[in-house]
């Protein structure tokens, strides 16, 4: 063990994940804009033959933004803030440092194989779990390595108490590990079904309704343990640190943590309301979704109250703007979700565009805003340079805020219109509208969504440029900033 005086936090792995977050963020959202445009203008499906069709690109979009952009942002944040709140450097263990490199290397291998296989149409056909079994094996290996690093750092820590962010990172690790394993139980057909199909093909170990239940237990918890739990870990560290204010109520953070852990796991059933799963299970999904408002708002209100007496920072510091709006969108999204899960509302909302609208006000407003703020907070510390442009960051904030509003409002209107038209019947009980009627009516809203997506993508480009210039041309910093990030 080295003494603290000669030790420094090791940011080499943080930098690598910052770059992958930026690259995957741009690529994933570029595909998102393209497929949004395809829905409005179907001829765009034929740009790249079979590789450019909506059906090939849609899973690529979700996988790249979830497992590329978001996971990279989460890991950059974990390797940065994890070391700091535990007061231990990765440099203190050669073994852990080597594992971080292996972690990144395997991550790149999975990313490359995932993009290739999905483009080729090789898929396990489950939402957020499209990767085929050979890739799942590498994912599990990578996850185990990440776990060893995390618990290794915890074992070496100087602080006895784990800061609340670490609780959430541990939950992120355990939750994904458990659910991913259960949902990806697959039978490779070549080896276990009489030599059927290619060696990489598989079918789910579960059948019918059971498969749907396990799938949405995972599917919704991918939202819980990738899009919520680690993002809360991030905001609990980065908002207090950037603002210089300790979290408003530590007790509330503990309470919200346990509330979220208990409730979130059982809310996935709301994806199967009005389906063939047992009725009580559908009700359980709805009830737990409504109860979920409490722990979700507990964290979000805790974050907003952390800014008590310091609201001037909201006008002065664009990073605070990003984080405060992120927690506000978290509140919006976690109110909207429970509303959609109520059976009577779900009867209209299910399968409509209101659902992607809900997903995107959460991911664009909450998840991505928080990732942007975290990466930008880390940039001056890891690159030891001032943030290149404050005005660019401000412009990005406003462009992307307008973009999110355009996205979700257009999808609210489109979704409710769609739901009402599907259900409309005349006095004899015949359907009033055919499917194509709804498609024609929705065209303007799809165009607005694509435009909103384009605006958001422009914001991502501004962000990528700002990060790149910060790393290469920002004014050098003599000392690491304590709280507020310096920006030109």
């Amino acid at each position: 063990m080295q003494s603290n005086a000669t030790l420094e936090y090791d940011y080499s792995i943080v930098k690598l994940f910052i770059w992958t977050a930026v690259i995957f963020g741009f690529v994933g959202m570029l595909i998102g804009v393209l497929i949004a445009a395809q829905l409005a203008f179907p001829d765009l499906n034929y740009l790249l033959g079979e590789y450019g069709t909506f059906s090939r690109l849609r899973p690529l979009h979700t996988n790249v933004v979830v497992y590329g952009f978001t996971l990279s942002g989460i890991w950059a944040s974990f390797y940065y803030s994890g070391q700091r709140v535990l007061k231990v450097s990765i440099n203190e263990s050669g073994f852990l440092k080597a594992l971080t490199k292996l972690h990144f290397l395997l991550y790149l291998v999975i990313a490359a194989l995932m993009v290739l296989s999905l483009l080729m149409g090789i898929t396990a056909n489950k939402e957020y779990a499209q990767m085929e079994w050979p890739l799942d094996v590498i994912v599990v290996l990578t996850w185990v390595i990440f776990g060893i690093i995390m618990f290794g750092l915890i074992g070496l820590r100087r602080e006895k108490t784990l800061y609340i962010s670490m609780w959430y990172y541990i939950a992120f690790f355990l939750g994904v590990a458990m659910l991913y394993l259960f949902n990806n139980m697959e039978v490779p057909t070549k080896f276990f079904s009489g030599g059927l199909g290619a060696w990489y093909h598989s079918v789910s170990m579960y059948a019918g309704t059971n498969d749907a239940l396990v799938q949405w237990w995972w599917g919704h918890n991918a939202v819980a343990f990738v899009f919520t739990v680690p993002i809360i870990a991030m905001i609990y560290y980065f908002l207090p640190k950037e603002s210089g204010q300790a979290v408003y109520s530590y007790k509330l953070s503990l309470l919200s943590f346990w509330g979220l852990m208990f409730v979130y796991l059982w809310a996935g059933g709301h994806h199967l309301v009005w389906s063939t799963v047992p009725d009580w299970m559908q009700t359980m999904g709805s009830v737990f979704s409504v109860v979920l408002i409490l722990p979700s708002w507990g964290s979000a209100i805790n974050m907003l109250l952390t800014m008590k007496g310091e609201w001037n920072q909201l006008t002065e510091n664009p990073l605070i703007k990003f984080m405060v709006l992120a927690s506000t969108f978290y509140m919006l999204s976690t109110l909207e979700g429970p509303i959609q899960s109520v059976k009577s509302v779900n009867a209209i909302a299910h399968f409509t565009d209101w659902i992607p609208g809900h997903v995107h006000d959460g991911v664009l407003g909450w998840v991505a805003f928080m990732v942007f703020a975290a990466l930008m907070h880390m940039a001056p510390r890891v690159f030891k340079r001032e943030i290149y442009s404050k005005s660019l960051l401000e412009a990005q904030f406003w462009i992307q805020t307008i973009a999110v509003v355009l996205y979700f409002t257009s999808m609210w209107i489109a979704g409710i219109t769609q739901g009402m038209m599907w259900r409309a019947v005349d006095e004899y009980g015949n359907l009033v509208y055919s499917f194509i009627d709804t498609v024609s009516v929705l065209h303007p809203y799809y165009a607005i969504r694509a435009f909103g997506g384009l605006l958001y993508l422009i914001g991502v480009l501004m962000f990528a440029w700002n990060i790149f210039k910060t790393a290469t041309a920002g004014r050098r910093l003599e000392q690491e900033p304590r709280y507020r990030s310096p920006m030109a």
Partner: protein
Amino acid sequence: MTSVEIEQLRIYLYLIGTGLAVVIFYYYIIHLYRSEKKGKKDYEKYGKLALDDELDSQILEKNPKLENDKKE
């Protein structure tokens, strides 16, 4: 056991489990406030862990397992 009985058992287990979890959860709230009132633990001080996070920052509570080989 018939499938109807299994279904009923599931429902009762679900209700009992939920009730139990609610009791544990509320007890946890009481436990947090009571231990702070009695002076056993000051939870709010842990908020400082995010702010004082340099390697040479004052350690709030030393990890007892590492006290011997990690002296400042």
